[in-house]
């Protein structure tokens, strides 16, 4: 056990710290939240371009594709520094956390060359086309079909809940290429140009009022065979790589956002008065804020621990499997606490630009997206604890 940084790690941290202190932009005026909203989207895209030009995007990616070849430990340091500097998150989150790492592990040299640099610079935005109306938690039962026609696959079918599809240039799409074998064995992963003829995106409105996920329809969409990611009919293993990355890397960016929310709540708790005193002096509220601080801190520590374990032993340890549960359930509890701290004003769209009600509502999706809490608990019970399969 040694959390001191070694000389290389210190050098990395100091360099990043210096760069951040000179380059972090003024905060975006407005609530932001769902990254893709117009101006905010452009603000974040410009930020990511700057980050990328300086070589700070995708730090754990190989150097030849614009990364830094940094190790997972540096990823952990990166997160802490990012939070400390209150730097905006990176916009191309699906590309950076899920799809890029999958291309790095199973992509061809041509695919890496073609796609990775533009993920880092946010020149091309990516989306993840896994879920379908009848294939959610059981995503392997998906029905979107792809049939080989010369050197192209022809894709027909529908995806749903596809985040960012309305702004995306590319999609990592799971399709069925062999319907006559067990469901996990007939799936292929395709890299699909969202501007191809036959792709129709229909935004879906969420309970927050925003539209950040979509239905996507594929009508005879032609995808070159060269865009198969991994092997034909081995798409399930490609998907697993993606889902593992989703689990391992999403935590990093999310901590940055959560820490900022907590700091803002602390500030508000000192400003808002009830009964003639700042709410931060209310003993019940203090208990709740302390509970939130504690839970977020434990998520940060577990995330660092998981990265350190993966780094030192090159396999994810069991603690990695609780991260998704920790952050999603923490955030739901935190946003509820925030509503209590802020009082009646919190429900107003005009208070803090409506970010608290937005966040409060948005957290409902946290325990659904990226694998529901029930599925996460099934995984812990069966894969980590070795209990018999329940289905």
């Amino acid at each position, binding site marked *: 056990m040694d959390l001191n940084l070694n000389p290389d*790690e210190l050098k990395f941290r100091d360099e990043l710290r210096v760069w951040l202190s000179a380059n972090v932009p003024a905060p975006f005026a407005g609530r932001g939240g769902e990254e893709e909203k117009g101006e905010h989207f452009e603000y974040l895209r410009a930020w990511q371009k700057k980050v990328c030009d300086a070589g700070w995007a995708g730090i754990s990616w190989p150097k030849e594709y614009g990364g830094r070849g940094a190790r997972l430990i540096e990823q952990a340091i990166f997160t802490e520094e990012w939070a400390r500097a209150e730097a905006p998150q990176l916009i191309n989150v699906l590309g950076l956390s899920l799809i890029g790492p999958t291309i790095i592990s199973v992509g061809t040299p041509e695919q890496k060359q073609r796609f990775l640099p533009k993920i880092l610079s946010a020149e091309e935005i990516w989306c993840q086309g896994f879920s379908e109306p009848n294939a959610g938690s059981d995503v392997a039962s998906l029905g979107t079909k792809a049939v080989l026609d010369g050197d192209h696959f022809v894709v027909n079918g529908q995806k749903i809940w596809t985040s960012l599809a309305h702004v995306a240039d590319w999609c990592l799409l799971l399709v069925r290429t062999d319907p006559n074998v067990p469901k996990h064995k007939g799936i292929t992963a395709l890299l699909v140009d969202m501007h191809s003829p036959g792709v129709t995106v229909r935004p879906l409105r969420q309970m927050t009022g925003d539209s950040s996920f979509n239905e996507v329809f594929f009508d005879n969409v032609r995808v070159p065979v060269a865009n198969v990611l991994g092997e034909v009919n081995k798409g399930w293993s490609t998907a697993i790589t993606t889902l593992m990355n989703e689990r391992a890397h999403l935590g990093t960016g999310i901590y940055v956002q959560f820490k900022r929310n907590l700091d803002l709540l602390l500030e508000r708790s000192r400003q808002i008065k009830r009964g003639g005193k700042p709410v931060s002096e209310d003993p019940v509220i*203090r208990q709740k*804020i*302390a509970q939130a601080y504690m839970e977020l801190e434990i998520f940060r520590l577990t995330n660092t621990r998981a990265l*350190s374990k993966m780094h030192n032993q090159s396999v994810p340890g069991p603690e990695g499997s*609780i991260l998704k549960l920790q952050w999603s359930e923490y955030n739901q509890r935190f946003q509820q606490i925030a509503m209590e701290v802020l009082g009646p004003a919190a429900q107003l769209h005009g208070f803090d630009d409506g970010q608290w009600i937005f966040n409060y509502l948005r957290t409902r999706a946290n325990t659904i997206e990226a694998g529901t809490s029930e599925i996460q608990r099934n995984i812990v019970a069966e894969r980590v604890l070795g209990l*018999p399969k329940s289905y």
Partner: protein
Amino acid sequence: MDFDLSKPQKLLQQSAREFFARACPPEKVRELMATGTAFDDALWRDMADQGWTGLIIPEEYGGLGLSLVDLIAVVEEMGRACLPGPFISTLWAASLIARAGSEGQRKQYLEPISMGEMKATVALLEESADWDLDAVSMRADKDGKSYRLRGRKEFVNDAAVADLIVVVARSGEDLVLLPVESGAAGLTITETPAIDATRKLYSLEFEDVEVPESSALAFTTRIREAVEEATETAMVALCAEMLGGMEWTLATTVEYARTRQQFDKPIGAYQAVQHQCADMFLMTESARSAIYYAAWAMSEKDPLAGLAGAVAKAYCSDAAREVGNRGVQVHGGIGFTWEHNLQLYYKRAKSSEILFGDAGYHRNAIARKVIDEVE
């Protein structure tokens, strides 16, 4: 950076696990809890032979001079065995002596503690049962070259087996730390039977107990900080003990869920049961993150160590109890029996939740640090 026990720490932990599995099986725990003091001298001496009674005591006083992280690696195993006896109490007192004692006092007390010849405890709480040092009100009045202790101390762990009791009292406005030897004239020790019979609690009555002024542990001007830091050391060790208990409960429960059949299936195939186990795992591993970090921060004298300790104890206090709750539930009727060993861990978790302050107490401490102390 490495957020895990090192190889030597893992070896140390493994040898402790084997030691306690052999030297302190559940039958032994039950045997000891039925005695008046829950103490076994032979077991204590065996632990001393391993060096564990002096694990973090500097080598110059006969200890191993290891770090707090090394210590928690071993204490986790004591928790897994639900080890009875005054280990945490002695650690608390030793940590206090190390911080506030003179060179001579350190030699006088830490050497026999390292050797396993002396057990000790700290008498801090009073009727108010408040862990805040401001609540200490028992008088130690100056009388010539002596202090005279008058009053009661409550909730004192292991007092009947302690050879030395460090009393935290008040002289004028100041806190004083007075070592009182067992059998001192005017001291009456009465057991107050409590939920956890494996770690006994006592009420101490002081009727004019005389302590020479020169015996006071006063080799620092920062008495308050010394008490706080010593308490944090013992507290993070207690958290590690709680972690070991959680691990035992989780492993025992998962094993039961795998083998117990109902409706022609192992109950562990039902998600309602699986998810209880998954939550137990989540709480256990979350606790581990908090404890390892706190122990490391304390051993490095990190300025945020106090906050890290409060986070660890606040979390463990609720988690250890809750892991026990889920464990009993998954066991069904057998989990509610005297016969099943779950009860030993369940009760230990409750007494540990209270010792050094429960979750609410430590959330208050966190609130003071994160809400009030803004830079």
